[in-house]
């Protein structure tokens, strides 16, 4: 046995546990979902294995199209809001916070040790009619009637922002943290205003982080389930809710599986696009 072969075998042996779990817990379940999306459905919720495109045909009927546009729209708006809020935070932590940077990052992450549903329920308490925000505003005499927040679109956006803020901040922070400070000094020496040096040096260099943030927010945002239900009153359903509705309320496993496959396909396309753009950015730099 040559050393190279032994090395290969060694690599394989070391990779085996993660490969095995990836196949068992990721590849096989996805294949099962794909198989179900081609199964046949009867009125009472039984699914018979076979090969039919009925579910996909049904999916592209007009009644489901608004859900796709709702989801893409909510994901896009959430991504923009997250970037607008997350970028300044990441910038501050990476370039201005100095020795408090670690502490700030920890503060950003610690709430995420608490279960997601519990945190969203906390928002219901904050935003409710008799909730903390309304009581405070009433107490200060700023409003006369409680403001309605739960069950509105802005409440959903607040939930999305809160849920995805760390995944926005962290990649941007990572990109900015690795920034060579000498570049900024050089820009300064060459007479650039702070704004100019931000737009022409800092921002372009943070782009890979920004793109990662877009990916990390946009893709999961389309499949979110709890936020539209808890904070939006369940009035505007998106793909995540549609999947739950099809599986649990309508017992239409093939159609639910088909929606999952389409969601997976959309996510994959976005990820492939991201990889392409990332590569061209890296190539342009070298």
């Amino acid at each position, binding site marked *: 046995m040559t050393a190279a072969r032994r090395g290969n075998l060694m690599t394989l042996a070391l990779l085996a546990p993660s490969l095995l779990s990836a196949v068992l817990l990721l590849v096989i379940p996805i294949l099962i979902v794909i198989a179900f999306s081609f199964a046949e459905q009867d009125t009472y*919720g039984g699914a018979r294995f076979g090969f039919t495109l009925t579910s996909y045909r049904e999916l592209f009927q007009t009644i489901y199209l*608004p859900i796709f546009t709702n989801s893409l729209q909510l994901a896009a708006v959430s991504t923009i809001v997250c970037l607008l809020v997350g970028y300044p935070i990441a910038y501050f932590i990476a370039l201005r916070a100095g020795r408090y940077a670690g502490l700030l990052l920890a503060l950003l992450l610690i709430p995420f040790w608490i279960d997601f549903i519990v945190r969203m329920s906390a928002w219901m308490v904050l935003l409710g009619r008799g909730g903390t925000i309304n009581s405070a505003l009433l107490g200060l005499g700023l409003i006369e009637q409680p403001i309605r927040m739960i069950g509105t679109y802005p409440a959903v956006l607040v939930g999305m922002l809160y849920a995805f803020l760390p995944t926005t901040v962290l990649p941007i922070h990572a990109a900015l943290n690795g920034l060579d400070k000498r570049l900024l000094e050089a820009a300064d020496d060459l007479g650039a205003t702070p704004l100019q040096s931000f737009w022409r040096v800092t921002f372009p260099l943070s782009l890979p982080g920004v793109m990662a943030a877009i990916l990390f927010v946009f893709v999961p945002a389309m499949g979110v389930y709890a936020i539209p239900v808890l904070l939006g009153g369940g009035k505007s359903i998106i793909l995540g809710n549609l999947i739950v509705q099809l599986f649990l309320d*309508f017992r239409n496993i093939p159609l639910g599986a088909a929606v999952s496959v389409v969601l997976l396909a959309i996510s994959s396309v976005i990820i492939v696009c991201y990889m392409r753009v990332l590569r061209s950015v890296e190539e342009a730099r070298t």
Partner: protein
Amino acid sequence: MKNWRSLLTSVSLIAFASGASAAELNIYAWSGEVPQEIVDDFAKETGITVTFDTYDSNETMMAKLSAGASGYDLIEPSQYTVQVLAKQGLLQELDHAKIPNLGNLGAPFKEVSYDPGQKWSVPYIWGTTGFAYNEDCVKTPPTSWKVLWDPQYEGRIYMLDNMLAAYIAGLQVNGFKAGTTTPAEIEKATQSLIEQKKVLGGYNSTNFGDLVASGEACIVQGWNGNIAQVMATNPKVKYVVPDEGGSMWIDGFAIPKSAKNVEEAYRFIDYIMRPEVAAKAANLSKSATVIDKAKALLPKEVVENTAIYPPEDKLMKADFILDVGDATKLYQDGWTKVKTAQ
């Protein structure tokens, strides 16, 4: 002699510890209908280890059962759900010999239309679908579903997040019967439910009682048991079976075909049909019992509570939803339209 006994004890202890003789029961029931205390009492009396899960729609429970091994031994379907599950072949035929307390059932529940001869299920409690309002917010007592469309309560009206329940209001407000299979009527109801979205705060079938009790909502569509539970602590909440009829439902126990602990399931059914146990369950869940002798044991404030025992004339008008068969698809498409409308 003494040694023998201690040997036996340790053997049985080992057997118990290894789970060989530890009896189990996995119950899956409507949230708020089977009180935890009843489950605990049963576990204590029988030594059976009970796992107790809840759902807030028949459809969720059916989805879990039809997906294969659910692991549940006892379920609590509503009337139309018994029909669907039986048609799918997901239930076991009940052996009445194993339920000695079956005779305790009150007369109207001995012979039910959806399950002749109690072949698949045994009634447990019954109730109505109507709406509740908070007096702080709604000054004139409403009597019609129409109040759930009233723009003056915009943002403070909640509907049950449950397809068939929402359609009870959608259909009856148009003068149709709940559970209809006529396409044009379902379509009209769909339009009404879409129109209603403008005034809705949201859909909720888990804590609608808390919503109306806290004042977050002025009016909520709801099932009477959950509402009666919050009425016990907040007298400003009132429950109404609407003039258009509302609906009456019966939830009962059934044993899935895939059940592993069948004997234990029978024991639970028989246990909960004892008059004193049924009375305790009804009192805690603020629901109407199907056991006559249990009703006699209930405190006056439960029996005289019209949210729990509505007047006879109201009940006569209430619709009783049965399996809608192929019309299910019409309801589902309509409900999807309602949920996606902006």
